[in-house]
């Protein structure tokens, strides 16, 4: 950022003031010459040109004041209005409840404004121990609350820490609002630290996986870009955004000009893009006439209303729903739930479907194709769909794309592709379907629905029977942990904020009755490990004011990335029940190592090298205690599990975080 661009709002540095004096000296000399020759040319000029306004020449006093040697610097010690106060005024209009940050000097001005001028309310600062935790907390919070919270970080080292978490949020279509401090103007960097913490283009590092960023050079610019960023983040597909808060703009006084003129634009969120009527009618025609329609749900339910709408559509046409579980899209116990990736539900139902309606599914190719598994040489893929099956997509991701990071998956051929937001399109689609249903089609749909309900019941009974295997095992089975947990939370207003597939064999998705938007929030987005613990605390922060019992099944490898978030939960009194999924390994990688060894036909007993988290075993209860979190464990005998959960829930109900370290089966 160049200081010369910001003269309207930034205070002049001594360097730029001297530059202006030099300019005025030249102006004075030119003016003197002009005065000397004026008598000769003025009449001609006056005779030939109409009268017009003439800029008056500077008087002698002004010239002296501007061109003499500058007076001794008079130190100005204080200001009544740092620029960061105005920045905070802008931020307050965006209605953030919280701002997650690990403190950093490049945003110290804004930090100070937030806690003093803003009285640490709306937003309230949440002290984080790592920028990855800050962003992941925002990620989890947004998935409960449906809106972003703010994150502050250094534009350099802080963003480097935060970048993976931003990528997770990007891939998961989650709004996160990141404000980065940076000292743009070189002459304002006071130490080698500030040089090392300054950058030409801070957002460049994450531009591949944010929706929008800007580097405002005036306070007015900051106001407009901040509001624009929020609006863009909250227009489907939701995505993270980044705004740079220049440190000089933050710390120096707001100029007289800005005090008179700077204003904060009003935020008006865009209506989500919905499909056009013709396309909706065509989808309705295909669904109503289908013999075996299937709805695949990706990130459909942006709001609780999305769940209700998806249920209404499925029931209207009696279509099975296969949930990819990136969100809480569809009630787990609904008779039209045909199963997600777990249990092969998708494979079977895709193969039987004659019409597939894909709603906000980013990885549709994966859902509709098989590939050669990892333990075979070569690669071959085959469609799972039967010949003649029609595929329809409604996907807001088609309206926004980037190229470098390849989270978009393989290109999928479809028959009707609608670039629109699925939730916004569902109301008109439901109505269009209702208009087309004849009594004859209604009967066929009811018969189909009854068969699907019977199938769903069989699937559930199979899962219940499967959960009994290994019931008394130690390490404790993931099914047992799920059921002991469920038994104690089922009468509470609970919220499960961790991904359970594949890590926990999806037992909660298979056995628990999930039907509210906050009952399940999906997972990482980009599978960047280190997401879970902080995202869970962020979700718990959102749940706190609703009085919900937040439950996090926490994998061990993930917690070890940034366990300091446990302290954040304790410090800010964020109630959350953490149940450790302590399998003492980076288990997915452990399995991959065994795969690789088997492929190479050697050394299948060495896979724990580099993947084990044992020897010594980590004592997570002691770790949590050190951070001020109530803890119990390690629990090794399944008999001890229920009493431990009971005690931990009692602690959580007092408003504090708790952790139960459970030594578990790996999956």
């Amino acid at each position, binding site marked *: 950022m160049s200081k010369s661009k910001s003269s309207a709002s930034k205070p002049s540095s001594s360097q730029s003031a001297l530059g202006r004096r030099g300019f005025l000296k030249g102006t004075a000399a030119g003016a003197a010459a002009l005065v000397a020759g004026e008598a000769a040319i003025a009449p001609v000029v006056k005779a030939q040109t109409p009268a017009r306004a003439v800029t008056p020449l500077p008087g002698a006093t002004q010239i002296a004041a501007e061109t003499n040697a500058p007076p001794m610097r008079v130190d100005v010690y204080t200001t009544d209005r740092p620029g960061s106060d105005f920045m905070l005024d802008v931020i307050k209009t965006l209605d953030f409840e919280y701002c997650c940050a690990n403190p950093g000097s490049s945003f110290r001005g804004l930090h100070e404004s937030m806690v003093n001028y803003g009285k640490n309310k709306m937003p309230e600062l949440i002290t984080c121990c790592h920028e990855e935790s800050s962003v992941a907390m925002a990620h989890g919070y947004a998935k409960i609350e449906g809106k972003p919270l703010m994150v502050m970080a250094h534009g350099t080292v802080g963003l480097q820490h935060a970048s993976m978490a931003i990528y997770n949020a990007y891939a998961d279509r989650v709004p996160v609002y990141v404000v980065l401090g940076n000292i743009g103007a070189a002459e304002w960097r006071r130490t080698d630290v500030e040089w090392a913490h300054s950058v030409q283009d801070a957002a460049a590092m994450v531009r591949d996986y944010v929706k929008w960023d800007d580097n405002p050079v005036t306070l007015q610019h900051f106001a407009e870009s901040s509001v624009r960023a929020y609006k863009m983040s909250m227009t489907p597909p939701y995505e993270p955004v980044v705004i740079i808060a220049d440190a000089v703009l933050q710390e120096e006084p707001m100029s007289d000009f800005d005090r008179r003129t700077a204003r904060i634009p009003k935020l008006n969120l865009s209506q989500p893009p919905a499909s056009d009527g013709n396309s909706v009618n065509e989808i309705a025609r295909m669904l109503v006439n289908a013999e075996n329609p299937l709805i695949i749900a990706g990130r459909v339910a942006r709001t609780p209303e999305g769940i209700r709408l998806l249920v209404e559509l499925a029931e209207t046409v009696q279509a099975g729903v296969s949930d990819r579980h990136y969100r809480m899209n569809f009630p787990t116990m609904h008779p039209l739930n045909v199963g997600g990736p777990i249990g092969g539900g998708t494979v079977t139902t895709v193969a039987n479907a004659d019409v597939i309606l894909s709603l906000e599914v980013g990885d549709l190719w994966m859902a509709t194709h098989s590939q050669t598994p990892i333990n075979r040489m070569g690669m071959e893929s085959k469609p799972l769909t039967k010949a003649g099956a029609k595929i329809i997509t409604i996907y807001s991701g088609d309206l926004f794309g980037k190229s470098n990071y390849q989270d978009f998956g393989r290109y999928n051929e479809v028959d009707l592709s609608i670039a629109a937001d699925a939730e916004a399109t569902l109301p008109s689609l439901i109505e269009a379907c209702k208009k087309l249903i004849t009594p004859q089609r209604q009967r066929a749909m009811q018969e189909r629905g009854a068969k699907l309900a019977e199938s769903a019941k069989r699937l559930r009974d199979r899962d219940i029977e499967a959960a009994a295997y*290994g019931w008394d095992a130690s390490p404790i089975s993931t099914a047992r942990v799920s059921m002991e947990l469920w038994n104690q939370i089922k009468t509470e207003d609970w919220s499960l904020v961790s991904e359970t597939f594949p890590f926990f*064999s999806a037992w909660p998705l298979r056995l628990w009755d999930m039907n509210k938007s906050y009952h399940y929030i999906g997972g990482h987005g980009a599978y960047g490990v280190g997401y879970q613990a902080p995202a869970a605390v962020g979700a718990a922060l959102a749940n706190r004011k609703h009085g919900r019992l937040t439950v996090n099944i926490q994998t061990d490898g993930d917690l070890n990335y940034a366990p300091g978030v446990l302290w954040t939960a304790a410090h800010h009194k964020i109630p959350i029940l953490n149940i450790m999924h302590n399998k003492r390994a980076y288990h997915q990688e452990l*399995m991959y190592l065994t795969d690789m060894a088997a492929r190479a036909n050697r050394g299948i007993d060495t896979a724990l090298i580099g993947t084990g988290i044992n020897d010594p075993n980590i004592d997570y209860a002691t770790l949590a205690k050190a951070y001020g979190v109530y803890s119990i464990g390690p629990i090794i005998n399944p008999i001890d599990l229920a009493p431990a959960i009971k005690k931990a829930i009692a602690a959580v109900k007092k408003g504090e975080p708790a952790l139960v370290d459970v030594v578990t089966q790996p999956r």
Partner: protein
Amino acid sequence: MKHLLAFVLLPSCIAFSQNATTSDATGSVDKGKKIFMDVGCYECHGTVGQGGAAGARIGPPPLNAQGFIRYIRKPAGAMPAFTDKVLTDRDLTDVYAYLKSIPAPKPVKDIPILNELKGK
């Protein structure tokens, strides 16, 4: 994606069990359990073969010993193939003995917190 593909294995195992004839194993349960843990069978199938998102349920085994060994040499789905270079027939016979020693699970009706899910 291993977890997604592993479930393809399940139907294949069931198919084997339907075709299998019963056969007793003569391996060592203790040796078999050690091999099961050392070479990582538990990673996908669980320490008592209960199965999960990454691997099919194999405790107790749904195949006879010959079928079990044959399947491990040339598996279906996402299961790795283990040749006799890394696991001998003797090793696999011991593993089979271990899996065979795993008792059948408690009936669901004897697990109240599971049983109450039935019919819901």
